[in-house]
Each structure stands twice: as structure tokens, then as C-alpha cells.
């Protein structure tokens, strides 16, 4: 059985009088320890798919099964716990807290997980070393380059040791070299046993991915796997 089973997933928005179908029936089976690249033009529904999978939004219909949990039927608090324990998010615009140091930014999610302060900092430091920022732990985000900021964000996504990493255009704001470094990092995460799903425009990502999905107008138009 797959780690994630998405069945006939639909999401519609009301835009004025018009109903927009961001997802119009998507079904997908994602094995554990796979690396998925979700591609498609703007408005194709790829970000919507990622947010639904991450429990940040609710589908209009359809099912999302992650492990043993039916995500669409969880209540608000259970969804928060699901995001905390199972998901690590990486965003295009990093979403670091400007006034916190790299260390505190990485440790931030642990505040909601009843982890003692000393342990929080130890874990955050370990992860910053792992993404190559062991010498930048007390720097504020504004004192770091874009690539470094995104690496802080990757470390933050890993701090709760989640099974599933969801990345929304992680290289979109980065130069080529920094983007490559992030892709390498995501690939390492995949190789160390996690499941990674990346929403991207960047065709280089497909060379790291085990599976590539093309979306258009809320539907899957092609699905390729590279084994």
C-alpha cells in the first residue's frame, strides 16, 4: 500500500460569480521514500495540491490518505498536529521571522511541540550544521543570502523530523547556483529516507525526482517515473 493515496481530489473557489476549479479530480499514489516533482503552468493547481496534502486547506471533495490518517476528515486541532508531526514546509519566499536568529528560526516549530529549550537549540544547531550553516547560527535572515535563507528554511522543515517534505517553488527566488544547492539538499533528504514533493517550474528538478507529474487546469496530464 502507498504512503499517500489521493483519490479524485477536487478543490473549487468562488471568484466573484465564477467558480474556479483549481483541482478537478486528481488521483495519485505516492510511495514512501520517493521524490516527486509537480510541474505545470501558473494556475494549473499544483500549489493547491501541495497545500491540500499539507493540511493547510480543505478539499471540496475527494480523499487524501496519509499513512493511516484520512486528512480530509481531521478537525482543526488534529490538522495542526498532523502538520507539526508529519509535514515539513519549504516556501518560495522562505518565510523566516526577521527578528529571530537562524538558530531561533529553525527551533521555532519546536515551541509548539513541548520540546525543552535546551533540546530545541541542540536540534536546531545540528540541522544548521547539516545544511552547511554551522558558522551562521546567530545571523539574522537579513544578514544571510537568499540561498542561505532557504537552507535555514530547509533546516526548519526538518526540525520536527517529518516523513513528508513539501516544497513550494523552493528555488524560485534563488540564483542558479543556490537553486542547485537546494535541489542537492532536497535530494539528500530523499536519499536519507524521506518522501519529498516539490512544486516547481524548474526543469532541472526532474533530474533529481523519481516521479514527475504535469498538471494543467487542475488535472494530471502526464505522470512519469524514473526507476
Amino acid at each position, binding site marked *: 500500500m502507498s504512503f499517500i493515496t489521493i483519490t479524485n481530489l477536487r478543490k473549487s473557489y468562488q471568484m466573484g460569480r465564477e467558480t474556479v476549479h483549481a483541482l478537478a479530480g486528481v488521483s495519485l499514489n505516492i510511495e514512501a521514500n520517493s521524490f516527486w516533482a509537480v510541474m505545470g503552468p501558473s494556475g494549473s493547481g499544483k500549489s493547491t495540491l501541495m*497545500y491540500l496534502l*499539507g493540511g*493547510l*486547506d480543505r478539499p471540496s471533495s475527494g480523499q487524501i490518505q496519509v499513512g493511516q490518517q484520512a486528512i480530509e476528515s481531521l478537525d*482543526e*486541532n488534529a490538522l*495542526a*498536529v498532523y*502538520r*507539526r*508531526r508529519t509535514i515539513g*514546509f519549504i*516556501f518560495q519566499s522562505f*518565510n523566516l*521571522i526577521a*527578528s529571530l536568529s537562524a538558530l531561533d528560526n529553525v527551533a*521555532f*516549530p519546536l*515551541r*509548539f*511541540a*513541548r520540546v525543552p*529549550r535546551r533540546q530545541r537549540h541542540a536540534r536546531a544547531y545540528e540541522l544548521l550544521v547539516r545544511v552547511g550553516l554551522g558558522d551562521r547560527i546567530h545571523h539574522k535572515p537579513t544578514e544571510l543570502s537568499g540561498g542561505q535563507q532557504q537552507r535555514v528554511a530547509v533546516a*526548519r522543515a526538518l526540525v*520536527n523530523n517529518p516523513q513528508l517534505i513539501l516544497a513550494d517553488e523552493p528555488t524560485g527566488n534563488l540564483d542558479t547556483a543556490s537553486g542547485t544547492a537546494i535541489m542537492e539538499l532536497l535530494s539528500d533528504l530523499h536519499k536519507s529516507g524521506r518522501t519529498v514533493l516539490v512544486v516547481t517550474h524548474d526543469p532541472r528538478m526532474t533530474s533529481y525526482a523519481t516521479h514527475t507529474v504535469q498538471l494543467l487546469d487542475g488535472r494530471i496530464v502526464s505522470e512519469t517515473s524514473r526507476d
Partner: protein
Amino acid sequence: MGILDLVTLIVENLARRKGRVALTAVGVIIGTAAVVLLVSLGVGLQQNAADQLGGIGDLTKIQVYPTYGEFDPNTGQPIGGTMLTDQTIADIGALPGVTAVIPQDYFQGYAQIKLDRLEGGSQMLGVGTNDLGQLGVKAQQGSLELKRGTAVVGAMVSQSFYDPRLRPGQDPPPPPDLYDKQLVLNLVKYTPDGQEVRKTVRLKVGGVLAEARDEPDWSIYIPLDELTGYNTWVTGQRIDRNKVGYNNMIVRVADLDQVLDVTEQITNLGYQAYTPQSFVQGINGFYLILQIIFGGVGAIALLVAAIGIANTMAMAILERTREIGLMKAVGATNQHVLGVFLGESAGIGFLGGLGGVALGWGLGQVANVFVLSYLAGQSAETGAPPPTVAVSTPLWLPIFALIFATIIGLISGLYPALSAATLSPIKALKYE
């Protein structure tokens, strides 16, 4: 998320924006300081009034009078009304807390008092006790004991003496020292056909009362049965207390707390009862209202501060929308977000309250120094005793003010925090 983690996060968030937190807290500081200072002023005024009232009589004393009914226009006889009889003494004496019931009566004729060449006049009171101490008066000379043939006189009685043979231009003699002197009383009555009848009585002054600024100052006290004898002579009728009653009674109560209660019960028995305690209660009521008004003025300042907090929190939530989205993405529940933002606004209220309590208390101390030195100068001119305190802060006030300011902060943050907690995480993350 543990309470400690929540508090740490709130403190860190507040510390991140020191300038804005401080500016918002200034409003709370002013409001809280106003509440503390103004209410302290009210309390100080009340304490001053209580100090001044301390001189008024004895607060455990209740004066009881009969009720007077209407007069029947045909017969001239009173209808209704109650009398103070021996039964009344027993009834009131049986009330819980009553320690003494002392009937009093006044001399109904005219008494001219002579001491050597001097003449004087004062009201003569008969009291149904041989110990005047039960009336709550104090002696400055001699004893308070009443015996047959003796009198105890009030502090001002000697002031009523004058020299009837004083020629114009002569200085009046100084008031005589009455203690241990033999007073000659000429009791005067008139027969129905206008004949003046006199009766001479000799009384030895066994004691002089200390000044009470009340009725006893101008009174001559003698035993009640002796006075009843003189009144019988004046009216020519035997006086039956069960038919004419006593003029009034003094009731003493063991405990100050029982005074109003006993007064009410005596009123319920059908008599008129007066106590200075009800006056004091009235004064206290006035100062309570004053304190509420003063507190209200301060509360308006706090209300303005509350709007300031709400505004700051609403701004903070706009600025930190993406942070709220991030909090949710990394697993914060709605309750976590609510707790953080409520905590921040309550924290601003608490900090402002802390500053306001310190400022209000400090201003009060400064005011005490200046106002008291000014008033001491004033009273040196008038001779009145200077007030001991102008602004007085009771312990409960800063505690109450601090809690109140915190709750104001909490309430002000309620709406912004609720809107933060219910924000859609995706919209929050995409917010520019």
C-alpha cells in the same frame, strides 16, 4: 505547548517591538496612574474626614425618643405615638448587643443657680444611673458618680455664671471653678393665678465633665428620682412613668458593628432612634461615591488606552500575517495563536499597569509632601488641627489596578487575537 513556553514566546515577541509596546503602554500607564492617584485622593479625604469626625460624641451611643402622634383637634389629646416606659427599658435591654438603657428627663421649671455673688442657669438633667460613665462622658475633675444631694456639671456650665451687680464698664468676673462647690438652686414655678413660688435646693458638685462638644457640656446631671421629685413639685402631680413616660433614653451598644442594627430594631419597636453612626455611614457613603467618580475619571483614561492597545494589536496582526501563517504551517493550533496574541495584549496591559501603579503611587507621595506642608501652614493661621494625610493608597488599590489594567489589555486584544487565530493559513502565508 507548555505555559512556560507560551509566556517565553509572548515576552520575546513583546521584546521584539520595544518601542511600540512602550508607546502603547504609556496610555495604560497614564490611565492606571490616574485611577490610583484619584482613588487614593478620595481615600485620603475620607480618612481626614474620619479624623475630624472622631471628636463627635460616642459612636456606640443611641438616642431614643418616643414617637409623637397627632393631636386630636377636639380634645387636645395626642392620638397614637409611643411612650418610653419601664417596659421600654426592659424591651430595649433585651435586644442583643445592648449593654445599658439609661432613661433621662429634663427639669420642667426654671432653675436659678447661685454661687456666692454669681448667678447662672443651665438645663438640669436627671439620669437613671449612678454612673455617668455609662453615657460615654469623661470627667476632668472629681468623679462621675451621682449621689443624692450631688451633681455632676458639664464643662461649659461655669461659663453661664455672671455677676448680676456688675456695673457698666466693670470687667466680668472669670468663670468660677465649680468643683467641690455648694450650688444653691432656686427652683421657680408659677401658680395658675400667677403667683411665683420658690424652692431652694443645695447641691454639691461632685465632678466636672471634660468638654464633649455636645449636650453634656451645658447640662447639670442629678439622679433621676431626685429630678422626678422636683418635677412633681413643679407640676403638682405625681409622675407615673407608665403614663407620661421618660423624655428620652440613652442606649449603649457593646460593639460598633451592632449600632446600626440595634438602631433599626429600636425603630421597629416603634420609637425614634438616632445614632451618630448613621451620620458617619452617610459620610462614608459620600466618600465612596467620590471615590467611584474619581475612579471613573481614571477608568475613562484607561478606556482610551484600551483602544490604543486594540489598535496596536490590530496593526501587529496585519504586519505579522505571514508569521501567523507560518505558525500554523509548522503546527501551531488556533488556540496557540490565540494564546500568543491575547498574551501579548495582556502583557502590554500588565506592563502599563505596573508603570501606572508606580507612577500613581509616587505622585501621591509627592502630593502628600507638598499639600501637607501647605495645609500645615494654613492651619497654623486658623488654629485648626492640621490634616495628617492628603493622599492615601490602600494596599488593595495597586493590586486591583494592576489586575484591572491586565484585564483591559486582555479584552482589548480579544478581537485582534480572534481574527489572527481564525486566519486562513494559506491566505496568511501569501499575504504581501
